[in-house]
């Protein structure tokens, strides 16, 4: 249960940590777009280099970042294998590298597999470094609230959503701790969660789920009362302790990411002219 994605904030002193969370959200989205725009060897190389450059900039130990990737190794391996065996090169003069029984492996398949791996890697590293690692959950919800504010014009309760998200994030560790406690307590009464048929195991969860929900509702009730006592009445007229403010570094980061996307598009166009750059 440890190492949960939202608990990953890693305190360090870096430009990425100091950036405005709104700018980081925009950068993260732009980075995902960039990873999908990549088309050829050179642009994917650039993407890979940029991902590792981000790790260096964030001053988060490489080990910590790689540990979070370890969790995705299965899905990455699966996609890679699928690509290697699935892709059939129908272009002229393309001979399979390996041709054994029903297995035919083409160079194109290998390239595709590598590209997809780099894309997943870059997306995970990019969003992780822009968002979860360098931004506290509270800053993140503040940013989302601010970015989604235009939607309030069409009556979307943006503040309420942001508050809900803040509360949900805040209570994840609490509820996890509670789950562990309840599990221990029921185990002490002889509950068994690990053996028996699927139906039996599903039934064995009732002694956990019922008290967990009961306590979640109790907590919600107490929280509501506490908020009421402090005169919470929704977002209207509410000021913030930490007012979000764009700085020079945010503008710089946004321009840099825009240039990065531009660069990748340029490489794609450039690559089409020169056949030696392998294109997807």
């Amino acid at each position, binding site marked *: 249960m440890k190492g949960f994605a939202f608990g990953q904030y890693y305190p360090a002193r870096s430009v990425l940590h100091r950036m405005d969370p709104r700018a980081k959200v925009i950068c993260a989205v732009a980075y995902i777009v960039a990873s999908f725009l990549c088309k050829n060897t050179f642009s994917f190389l650039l993407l890979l280099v940029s991902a590792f450059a981000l790790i260096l900039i964030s001053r988060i130990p490489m080990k910590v970042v790689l540990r979070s990737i370890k969790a995705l190794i299965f899905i990455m391996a699966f996609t890679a294998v699928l690509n290697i065996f699935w892709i059939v090169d129908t272009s002229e003069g393309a001979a399979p590298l390996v041709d054994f029984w029903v297995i035919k492996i083409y160079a194109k398949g290998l390239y595709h597999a590598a590209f997809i791996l780099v894309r997943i890697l870059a997306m995970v590293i990019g969003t992780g470094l822009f968002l979860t690692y360098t931004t506290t959950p509270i800053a993140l919800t503040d940013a989302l609230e601010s970015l989604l504010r235009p939607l309030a014009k069409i009556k979307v309760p943006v503040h309420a959503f942001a508050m809900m998200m803040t509360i949900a994030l805040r209570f994840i560790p609490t509820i996890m701790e509670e789950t562990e*406690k309840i599990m*221990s*307590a029921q185990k*002490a*009464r*002889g509950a068994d969660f690990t053996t028996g048929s699927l139906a039996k195991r599903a039934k064995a969860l*009732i002694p956990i789920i019922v008290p967990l929900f009961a306590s979640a509702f109790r907590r919600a009730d107490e929280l509501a009362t506490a908020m009421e006592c402090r005169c919470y009445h929704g977002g209207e007229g509410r000021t913030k302790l930490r007012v979000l403010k764009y700085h020079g570094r945010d503008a710089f980061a946004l321009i840099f990411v825009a240039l990065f996307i531009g660069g990748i598009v340029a490489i794609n166009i450039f690559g089409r002219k020169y056949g030696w750059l392998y294109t997807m």
Partner: protein
Amino acid sequence: MKKKDKISRPNPQAVGTETGTAPSVPIMNQTENPKIRLENINYYYGKGTPFEVKALDSVSLDIHAGKLTGIIGHTGSGKSTLVQLLNGLSRAGEGRVLLDGTDIWAKPKDIGRIRYRVGLVMQYPEYQLFEETVFADIAFGPRNMGLSEEEIRERVVEAAAFAGVPADLMDKSPFDLSGGQKRRVAIAGIMAMRPEVLVLDEPAAGLDPQGRHTIFQGIRHYNRNTGCTVLIVSHSMEDMAQYCDDVVVMAHAKVLMAGDRDYIFSRADELEAVGLDIPQVTKLCQLLRRGGMPMPAGLYTVEAAEEALEAIFSQAKGQRKGGKQA
């Protein structure tokens, strides 16, 4: 096995000494046939990470059969960690837990059976209630043991009586009860398994004095009537002094001292030195003694203090009378 503990005075040299990681630590509160014996237990949280904390440090301890033993210590002294080892909810990295002389982890697959023999009531147990009726909730443990309906009914009724759950609550939803009632239902749920050892982690936490008294009275009554070995974790010396036979004092992940009440409270000064409060009566006697009154050390009940004071006064009176006559 019950009343033959007089030979089992704790070894004074062993008490509070810095044995460190010596291969074998003298066993505190040693007895011949302990119900539970802890041997050289070391327990770490987050071992191998920078956040490593040693929660138990070379703990060796005997729990006497049939007695009511109190475990006392500050928050973070390792007492809750200790009790979770007793029924195999967690396993110590080093050391053994012996129940009636057998290692509880001898057959790891059978650890479930150990949990029926060592019943653990965790902190704030009222939050684990889940069944539709109080009866069904108390019956959860016995039902998991695979007992017959008849046997279950008998045990539930018995446990409810010991824990002080009135019969008219049996068909109510546990969610409709008051905090104190829920607590008693949860305790009954463990008692109904008829464990050989009953362990309660802060059973009276958050209850008012009346509620505390009822719970402790019930537990003591249960201990005396069933002969079941009972362990209570608490941080209230007053409760310990009032209800327990033996007391185990924990501080900084170690057992500081262990022994029967008389022995522990005769060392009240040491308890205070580690920042534990001692019963008010003990404190008063201490002050009187410091003021020059010949009060005996280690008094922990109002009755005993009263007796001692009476003895001193009557003696003083006798002396004065004698003086006048002369």
